[in-house]
């Protein structure tokens, strides 16, 4: 939810810290708030903090500020305007409040409300609609207003009948079925309860008599319906998180107040309030010392009480036991460990002094399969194999996904071979020398049958010969199979028996290298050969080439041919040029090669060979 800084400020007389600091404090003590005010409210706090009042309470607790006491809405009720009656036919409605308001017309949205709606990403519709949205963003309680003139006969809250449908605000028509909770009249559905209003009794410019409703519905029912109908609305989000039915009353007061302010000659009627099972306050017994023990802190009883009280929790000592009475809006506080979290986060996790674990764990035994995978990996790497991680999702297999992420990713892989051959084939053209050895392996989980999950090893290369040595070391009897020009062996990992256990050569294979971007553009390969005096270090020659070849040299120089003739030694190097920005031209590479040739020829006793 997007937070408005000015709106939050309105709850306090003392100035709040600058937005950046305020949001950082909330991030450190409550929930993540980005610099632009976007608050990441997770399900534990969605019942109270998807509202500015809820967040202001957090601000008060985190910063130790006193909130301005909310002014009780003041308005007169018209005794002549009776409470609407709503027939409640389902236990899924936990509270239903309704009230009639009449006026000769309703004005525009007041600027201060329009402004606040704008900063939280809402949009203006009309005075009546805007104030009802406003109440939700202020208090977290969704509300809905009907045009009383369009309601036919008795209003009711019930589940839909099979075959019923409703035209929603915005025009979409949805089919309802027997477990969708609706508000209806004698002509049919008016509203998908707690989720989205219907078009038939929507408030328009012509509306004079309104029915204000503030309800609370079963969160599971709301969640199921919202998902089934794909109506993930702001209202549904609040109800599915088990908003307190107690929150309805203050929202009805606020809504009535704001609608009365809009109406010319407005009158508000008596209240209908169906609330058969008023919720009782949650009481938690706790031991302050247990909270300290769980956090690893040494807070005094007074500090613990004070932190809880700053959140609206009433703390009392009953004999020897401490009791916390949780405010109705905090639906997430149920057990004493929840209270420990409140103490810990308000005190600040940075204030908790880190400790070590007790040193009572001397023997560590890893699962055999972990040890085996490690030894096989090391053995293969020592034999020149490069490890790959393939995709677990492929176009073929025995186990199908209900929801594939992409075409060609509909199944769990049933083997490693198919993926490994693809990887061999895509990498083969990337070699610099024709008969270079490209040896790959993967250790990974495969799903060969519906209820089967196994860890396999697959290794592959261009020729079967390249696999022979390591197959012997791993005591793998299976012969390489040939497919698409490569040879691959795949076995169950636990069937691999190392003839000689790999020594722990990990340090040789752990790198701190920083990633260098891999260019998507084609490369150009060139060779240079030269005569040098016998005794010349080829590495020095390579350095010399590297120094003058320019920034387009991406690989090499690789020394690939050496022979002696008399007092001279011939060296041949291969160079690979590639750009990260574009496809190189021959001319560019020719220039680089001329620089290389010139630099080598200018070295005493070096002669670049012309062919």
């Amino acid at each position, binding site marked *: 939810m997007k937070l408005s800084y000015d709106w939050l400020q309105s709850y306090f007389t003392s100035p709040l810290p600058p937005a950046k600091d305020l949001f950082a404090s909330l991030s450190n*003590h409550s929930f993540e708030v980005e610099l632009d005010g976007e608050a990441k409210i*997770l*399900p534990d706090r969605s019942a109270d903090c998807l509202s500015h009042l809820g967040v202001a309470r957090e601000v008060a607790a985190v910063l130790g500020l006193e909130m301005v006491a909310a002014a009780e809405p003041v308005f007169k009720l018209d005794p002549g305007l009776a409470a609407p009656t709503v027939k409640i036919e389902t236990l899924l409605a936990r509270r239903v409040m309704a009230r009639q308001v009449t006026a000769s017309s309703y004005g525009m949205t007041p600027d201060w409300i329009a402004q606040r709606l704008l900063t939280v990403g809402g949009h203006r519709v009309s005075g009546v609609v805007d104030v009802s949205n406003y109440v939700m963003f202020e208090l977290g309680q969704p509300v809905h207003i009907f045009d009383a003139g369009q309601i036919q006969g008795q209003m009711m809250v019930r589940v839909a009948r099979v075959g019923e449908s409703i035209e929603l605000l915005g025009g979409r028509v949805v089919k309802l079925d027997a477990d969708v909770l609706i508000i209806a009249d004698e002509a049919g559905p008016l509203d998908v309860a707690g989720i989205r209003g219907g078009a038939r009794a929507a408030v328009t410019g012509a509306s004079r008599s309104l029915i204000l409703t503030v309800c609370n519905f079963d*969160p599971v029912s709301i*969640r199921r319906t919202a998902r089934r109908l794909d109506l993930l609305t702001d209202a549904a*989000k609040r109800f*599915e998180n088990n908003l307190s039915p107690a929150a309805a009353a203050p929202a009805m007061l606020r809504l009535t107040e704001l609608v009365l302010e809009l109406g010319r000659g407005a009158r508000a009627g008596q209240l209908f309030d169906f609330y058969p099972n008023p919720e009782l306050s949650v009481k938690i017994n706790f031991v302050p010392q247990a909270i300290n023990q769980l*956090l*690893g802190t040494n807070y005094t009883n007074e500090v613990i009480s004070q932190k809880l009280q700053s959140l609206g929790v009433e703390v009392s000592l009953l004999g020897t036991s401490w009791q916390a009475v949780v405010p109705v809006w905090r639906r997430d506080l149920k*057990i004493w460990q929840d209270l*420990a979290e409140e103490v810990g*986060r308000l005190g600040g*996790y940075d204030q*908790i*002094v*880190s*400790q*070590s*674990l007790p040193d009572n*764990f001397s023997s560590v035994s*890893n*699962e055999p399969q972990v040890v085996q995978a490690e030894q096989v990996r090391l053995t*293969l*790497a020592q*034999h*020149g194999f*490069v490890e*790959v991680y393939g995709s*677990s999702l492929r176009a073929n297999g025995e*186990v199908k*996904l209900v*929801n594939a*992420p992409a075409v060609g990713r509909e199944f769990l892989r049933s083997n490693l071979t198919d993926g490994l051959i*693809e990887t061999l084939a895509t*990498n083969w053209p990337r070699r610099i020398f024709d*008969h270079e*050895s490209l040896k790959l392996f993967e250790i*990974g*989980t495969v799903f060969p049958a519906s209820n089967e*999950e196994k860890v396999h090893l697959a290794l592959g290369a261009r020729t079967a010969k390249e696999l022979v040595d390591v197959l012997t070391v791993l005591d793998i009897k299976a012969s390489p199979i040939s497919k698409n020009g490569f040879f691959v062996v795949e076995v169950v990992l636990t069937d691999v028996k190392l003839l000689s256990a790999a020594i722990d050569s990990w340090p040789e294979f*752990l790198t701190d290298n*920083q*990633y260098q*971007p891999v260019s998507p553009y084609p490369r*150009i*390969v*060139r*060779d240079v050969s030269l005569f040098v005096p016998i005794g010349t270090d080829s590495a020095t020659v390579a350095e010399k080439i590297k120094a003058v070849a320019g920034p387009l040299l991406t*690989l090499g120089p*690789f*020394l*690939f*041919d*050496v*022979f*002696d003739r008399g007092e001279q*030694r011939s060296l041949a190097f291969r160079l*690979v040029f590639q750009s990260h920005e574009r496809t190189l031209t*021959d001319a560019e590479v020719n220039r680089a090669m001329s620089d290389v040739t010139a630099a080598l020829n200018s070295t005493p006793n070096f002669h670049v060979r012309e*062919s």
Partner: protein
Amino acid sequence: MKPRRAGQISSVVELPFCKRAVVGSSPTSGFMKQDGRGHLHLLTQAERRARAIFQQLGFATVGGPEVETEYYNFDALNISADHPARDLWDTFWLEPRSASRLLRTHTSPVQIRYLENHPPPVRIIAPGRVFRYEATDATHNYQFHQLEGLVVDRQINLAQLKGVVEEFLRQFFNLADLATRFRPSYFPFVEPGVEVDILWRDKFVEVMGAGLVHPTVLDGVGLDPEVWSGFAFGLGLDRLTMIRHGVDDVRYFYDGHIGFLQQF
């Protein structure tokens, strides 16, 4: 054999090369290292690094299945079917949907499986592949790797969680003064729940979720929460590795490009 003329574009090179070599080792373009050894995948290296650090701290490494049941992936972790917290994990379901089998969305099911079969005290890590049904981009992939940690003992506390996590991160990044930050967060299977950031190049970056094992989870595996307590954490190995090695696209880990693999 004859080297090609300087200036000629390579298509095919005649080999065997080096037949007449009298100095140096055989050439390689870098598929292998200069000495003929191969490369272990960067995520294998990261996992190994992590395991070595945790092993010193007394953690054993265990595994768990990638295909899970709804029970182990969610219910046993205090994430009930109709709770909005389910939305925090976008899930791949397997056919038939009625069987409620899925690709694990986190390594946390290993906590339950392990505790069901091993009495405390427990000190384990469980690295492994996990899956999320989400759009793929440079920082998100439908498969990635997590490393789960779990400690259950008498009187385990949040200060110890901090100590272990900080020690791990300092050693993993090889930075004795690495700054970390613990923020409140929410995961249904821990209470309190935290998120851990590291200060990396002047910015805080999120690296893991953690917390004290929720009493409901302990209760579910038959452990009395008034006697036993524990902490758990789940770190993203791909993410930690990207940070450590400056990798800017998670997909490199899985597309098998030799130009990437041979760098490490």
